[in-house]
């Protein structure tokens, strides 16, 4: 890897971590392209390697968010422990439905959820749930 590639991958790493801390996702949306484009990994290797970076983000993010009082730990761990149930379901569905149909179906679902979240973002400030710390008022 050349130095500019290392810098680019590290910068996408910082950005992915920020998205993770802000939005509660692992950051793979940026780690995977960073690893595939700048670290010479195949798509499968990039997705797999990204998982390890995601675990680090999730551990540190959970710790920080717990200090802010934003983690229901038992709920989160239960979701994690039970998620392999869905992996099997996903494999069955993947074998029954074409990949393209799945992609379009998920894209439609994501857009529907995005619209609902946008509506929530645009709600009148008076409806807003107070911040857990009673701090930052909405709006």
């Amino acid at each position, binding site marked *: 890897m050349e130095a500019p590639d290392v810098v680019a991958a590290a910068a996408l790493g910082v950005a992915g971590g920020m998205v993770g801390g802000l939005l509660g996702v692992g950051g793979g949306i940026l780690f995977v392209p960073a690893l595939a484009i700048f670290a010479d990994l195949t798509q499968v290797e990039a997705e797999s390697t990204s998982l390890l970076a995601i675990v680090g983000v999730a551990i540190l993010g959970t710790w920080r968010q717990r200090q802010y009082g934003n983690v229901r730990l038992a709920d989160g761990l239960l979701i994690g422990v039970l998620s392999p149930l869905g992996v099997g379901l996903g494999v069955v569905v993947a074998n029954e439905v074409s990949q393209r149909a799945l992609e379009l179906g998920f894209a439609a679902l994501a857009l529907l959820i995005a619209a609902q979240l946008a509506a929530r*973002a645009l709600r009148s400030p008076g409806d807003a749930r107070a911040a857990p710390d009673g701090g930052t008022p909405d709006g």
Partner: protein
Amino acid sequence: MPRDRILKLAVVATAAGAFSGLFGVGGGTIIVPLLVFWLGFGEREATGTSLAAIIVIGAVAAGAQAIYGNVDVAKAALVGIPALVGVVAGAALQQRIPERLIAGLFALLLIAISVELIL
């Protein structure tokens, strides 16, 4: 924990596992909206709790991929260590913005994912 709540969390878990297996998107894109709309979590709580779930989901998936030799530890560190700085900054920033803005940013993330899937 009440049975009803455990059942709901089990459904969230199943959906997260299924979608991450199908699309390689982390479970977080599914978990956060479900916690907000179905279990009544605030945005901050939903994102914090989602991260706790991702520790387990990511560790299991990374372990499975490592068996197949697909995980490059040095390259994971290349993005993962800078990411630790990012996640601390992101979580700190999140405490200073309104929850509605978190919902709006999440909507943008989902739109980006949709565009990527459609293209």
